[in-house]
């Protein structure tokens, strides 16, 4: 076990963290702006993977076009779902919101089973990432770098969008006081449609980006949504940088856990989440809830 070996594990953890970030940041945004806990978030992540497969017919040369198409379809589907379903339960207690999105999870999982079957759907590595790269003499898949880059660029663009554009300012305002925002003349329902669309598009992109490394199955949705919850709770709901921090933490904990205590690797993320909730329930970078009097 030399230095290169550890560097490889670190890189693996970061690559995993990258897809986790794409998956969770939308969940965080949607909860922050809309107050909706989207149990179906992992299902859209799964749809992203299957859509990439369907758009390219499983051929590696359609990879780049396929990714863009997945991003666009993700947005359209997200906007559509918000308009048709989510919109009806804003005024309801949060139990009903959770149940509605849970119903969507069940439906999407079975639709995928119906259209794609229950088996694995694998995707070949795109040509550009065929050869390995070397780090301290240890070979590693060059695709790792693409995943990390994709997440970094997405985080940067999202940061610019939220903190440097008017639309982003509205979204941040919606997390704090929806009624005030509406009183100022912002079309909040439309804003919600956009937020949901963006969140879903990112999740779909994350699922699609993972496909060359990991085959898609109908069961991946449930695992994904639980991982996304863990990331978001650790990082802090409604915080982009929190989602990033949470994803990196979980990615590294997962990679190191598999290395040192493989039997218990599954337990660590949950333990970390429970610990966070106990010590800092609003998450590492979240805001403590305002005390209502």
């Amino acid at each position, binding site marked *: 076990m030399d230095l290169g070996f550890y560097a490889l594990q670190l890189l693996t953890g970061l690559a995993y963290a990258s897809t986790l970030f794409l998956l969770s940041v939308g969940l965080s945004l949607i909860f922050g702006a809309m107050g909706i806990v989207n149990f179906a978030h992992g299902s859209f992540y799964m749809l992203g993977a299957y859509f990439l497969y369907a758009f390219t017919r499983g051929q590696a040369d359609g990879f780049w076009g396929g990714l863009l198409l997945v991003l666009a379809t993700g947005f359209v589907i997200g906007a559509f779902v918000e308009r048709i379903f989510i919109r009806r*339960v804003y005024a309801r207690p949060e139990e009903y919101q959770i149940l509605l999105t849970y*119903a969507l999870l*069940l439906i999407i999982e079975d639709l995928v089973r119906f259209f794609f079957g229950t088996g694995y759907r694998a995707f070949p590595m795109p040509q550009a990432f065929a050869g390995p790269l070397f780090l301290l003499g240890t070979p590693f898949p060059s695709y790792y770098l693409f995943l990390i880059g994709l997440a970094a660029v997405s985080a940067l663009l999202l940061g610019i969008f939220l903190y440097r554009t008017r639309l982003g300012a509205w979204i941040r305002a919606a997390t704090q006081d929806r009624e005030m925002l509406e009183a100022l003349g912002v079309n909040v329902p439309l804003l919600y449609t956009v937020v949901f669309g963006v969140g879903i598009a990112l999740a779909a992109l994350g699922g699609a980006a993972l496909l060359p490394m990991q085959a898609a199955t109908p069961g991946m949705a*449930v695992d994904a949504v639980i991982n996304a919850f863990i990331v978001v709770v650790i990082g802090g709901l409604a915080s982009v940088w929190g989602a990033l921090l949470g994803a990196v933490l979980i990615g590294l904990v997962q990679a190191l856990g598999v290395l040192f205590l493989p039997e218990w690797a599954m*337990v660590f993320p949950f333990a970390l989440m429970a610990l966070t909730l106990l010590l800092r329930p609003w998450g590492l970078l979240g805001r403590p809830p305002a005390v209502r009097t």
Partner: protein
Amino acid sequence: MRLLWLFLALALLGPWFSEYGLKLASEAFILGLYAMAFNLLFRQTGLLSFGQAAFFGLGAYTMALLVARGGWPFPATLPLAFLISALGALFIGFLSIRLSRIYFTMLTLAFAQLLYAVAHKWYAFTGGDNGITDLRPPGIWGESLFYYYVVLFLFALGVLFLWALERSPFGYALRALRDNRARAEAVGINAFGHLLLAFVISGALSGLAGALQGALQRSVFPDYLFWTRSAECILATILGGSGVFLGPAIGATVFLLLRVVVQANTEYWPFFLGALLLLMVLFFPKGLGGLALEMASRRLKGERRGASGS
């Protein structure tokens, strides 16, 4: 009183069921008890626990481990399953009840998944994903009709207990806390203690249901702890109507009947379940029980109006 008639009718029905019918009815009582236990929290305190499977599974594993590894007789494991789940609920509740709403939901989910991960990985103790099988209870306990009466008896006991609880000062205190916590605390109700006790009772009853289910299925697997198992009691509750006392039990029965019918015809049961849940949430949030009550009261009102008009 009406509850007692119901139990009597169910008891008389026993000998008429086929072997399969007995199994299905027993499962309905078990799921009913589990959902009623969940609804004690949901309706009386307003807390949405997404981790009831933790206690369901704890009860099931306590029973299974004592029978398979300790050689205990099955009936003797039930009080212990009840107790261990109560202890588990005391621990998890102690940590999660201080958190508010959505965080409570998430933490209960996290703890349940944590237990699932442990049961899944700890081959030496829990058998991992091979589960613990071959749990046929000895002698008369393994017979469907007798087991039906055992389950019915415990179900009835649980329901009567919850019924009494709802009408007790403790039940009123829980609802006061749900409706206005600040005021309830101001008149001297210890919020944390009350909610914790409700959580422990709910967990203990869920554990009892889990142990009964394990013996009915003759096996226990880690999926007893999986979050879809937590969702099951929520689905049954929503289906039957959380605002009606027996709603969760009604929902559990309908849930199981639907599953039998749908699974006989198609493998896409989750799709139907999802579509049904979608419809319930969007159009009938009060559930079947609520719907029935509404129709009954409308008819009653209609009759009165008719009477006064003549």
